């Protein structure tokens, strides 16, 4: 399929508005993505035509809703190349998925065991592991970061011991856009018998993960960052691990048999899907994934690389600019500051010019502490953005610099 940017932009109604009297330039895609019309329509269609509770009723609508929900699960299974559809669990997002796994490990880990995270993690891939360690007496170890924002792989290998039980790292860093060598990380962890959880929240908007090829034990991501609804997400787990982990929440649907003496749990995936799920969200997430696959991830990656290169080239011309995360392999995310200027001031001014970027610590304070900065300005591009929008951002940044000097 030919990549037609004008056609793509016409499919995103939110992009065609003015903010503070200027055309909206939405460069906060790493925080959440915008939704194409097919996704919005699917949400309306669900509530207009399909809505019923799933896996319970014998009536027609319940059957239709159940089928749609389970078809979506299979769609997502194929998308990430999971071996079985029951290894694909619907969640409310990446944070929930990590908490589910970390909570389970908190009950399995013992004193003396070790958990490894990296310096590049979002708080949501740090704090749940701190809980798990506090609860179990295990120790949290951190893979250090190098000046260019990459992880120190030599140090990582030295951290791995037979005490390492799980390694939890992101596929792509949210604050810097750096792509981590997850395949290598997984391989090395498996050599000492440790499991690996990959936080794919920032990777899935840009690439199609192959969980079997990666051989990761868990892979988590959010629906709202890939054109799907908020409050949706996926936790992939290898069958053996999902059987081993204790259930996270108790309730309906996750049980096999309940008496007041003892409850036995349902089989996968229902063991981890207590209560009525976000049915509409789960179904529409499948629609969002179809939409992305129709455009094609190769097309998306190539176009976003073009935007990244152009953005870097134009930004580099600005005086006093400093970049964070300068590895060769990067997602279309640029984190930067201007010497002597607080990122908040820049963000507040360019917002007035219609430019939406994120400023702050991006929920990754350890990274900011490493660089000894209060935060950064983060421009994150999606496949529906354009070079003209980058030009508009550059003009806005120049104005901000002028005002703040």
């Amino acid at each position, binding site marked *: 399929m030919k990549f037609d940017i004008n056609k793509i932009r016409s499919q995103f109604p939110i992009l065609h508005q003015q903010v503070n009297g200027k055309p909206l330039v939405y460069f906060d895609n790493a925080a959440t993505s915008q939704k194409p019309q097919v996704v919005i329509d699917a949400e309306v269609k669900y509530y207009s035509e399909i809505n019923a509770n799933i896996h319970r009723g014998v009536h027609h609508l319940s059957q239709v809703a159940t089928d749609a929900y389970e078809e979506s699960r299979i769609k997502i299974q194929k998308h990430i190349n999971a071996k079985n559809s029951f290894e694909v669990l619907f969640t409310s997002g990446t944070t929930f998925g990590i908490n589910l796994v970390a909570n389970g490990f908190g009950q399995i880990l013992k004193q003396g065991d070790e958990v490894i995270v990296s310096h590049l993690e979002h708080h949501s891939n740090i704090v749940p592991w701190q809980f798990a360690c506090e609860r179990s007496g295990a120790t949290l170890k951190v893979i250090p970061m190098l000046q260019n924002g990459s992880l120190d792989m030599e140090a990582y290998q030295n951290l791995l011991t037979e005490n390492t039980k799980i390694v939890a790292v992101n596929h792509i860093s949210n604050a810097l856009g750096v792509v981590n060598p997850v395949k290598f990380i997984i391989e090395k962890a498996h050599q000492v018998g440790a499991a690996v959880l990959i936080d794919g929240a920032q990777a899935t908007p840009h690439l199609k993960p192959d969980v079997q090829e990666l051989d990761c034990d868990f892979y988590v991501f959010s629906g709202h960052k890939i054109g799907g609804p908020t409050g949706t997400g996926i936790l992939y787990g290898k069958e053996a691990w999902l059987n081993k982990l204790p259930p996270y929440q108790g309730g309906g649907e996750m049980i096999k048999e309940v008496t007041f003496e003892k409850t036995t749990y349902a089989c996968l995936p229902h063991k981890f899907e207590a209560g009525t799920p976000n049915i509409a969200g789960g179904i529409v997430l499948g629609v969002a994934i179809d939409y992305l696959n129709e455009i094609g991830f190769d097309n998306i990656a190539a176009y976003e690389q073009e935007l990244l290169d152009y953005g870097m080239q134009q930004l580099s011309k600005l005086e006093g600019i400093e970049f964070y995360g300068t590895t060769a392999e990067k997602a279309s995310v640029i984190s930067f500051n201007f010497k002597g200027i607080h990122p*908040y*001031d820049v963000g*507040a*001014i360019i917002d*007035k010019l219609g430019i939406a970027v994120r400023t702050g610590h991006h929920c990754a304070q350890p990274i900011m502490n490493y660089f000894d900065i*209060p935060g950064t300005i983060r421009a994150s591009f999606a496949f529906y953005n354009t070079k003209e929008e980058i030009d508009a951002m550059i003009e806005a940044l120049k104005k901000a610099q002028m*005002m*703040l000097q």
Partner: protein
Amino acid sequence: MTIKEIQEEIVDEFAMFDDWMQRYEYIIELGKSLPLIEDQYKVEENLIRGCQSKVWLHAEKNDNKIVFTADSDAILTKGIIAILIRTFSDQKAVDVMNADTSFIDEIGLKEHLSPTRANGLVSMLKQIKLYAIALQAN
């Protein structure tokens, strides 16, 4: 001047500006001219933690008046504090406690009151009032 008179003066000043840029430039100017806070007061205890920028606010009693000094690492934020200090510093604690703060809306800074800006205009106002209550009680 009373708090109310100062607020009216500030509202008048901001009414002269045609657009946001002039308004922001003025705030930046105010930020730059804010008297420096003494280093001994730029400490953890005086920090009002917002989401994005740091704000230090110190208060002390001078006769029966309350005197504020402050600083921030972001210049827009510093300008906003300068406006607050001009309004509330050197006033009686009881007047600070009871002061109306709706002039913030009138000078077009309402957006800074939203929780996402959590940059602290709300926290700053709250802290100023808390200081006033504490110093009033002493």
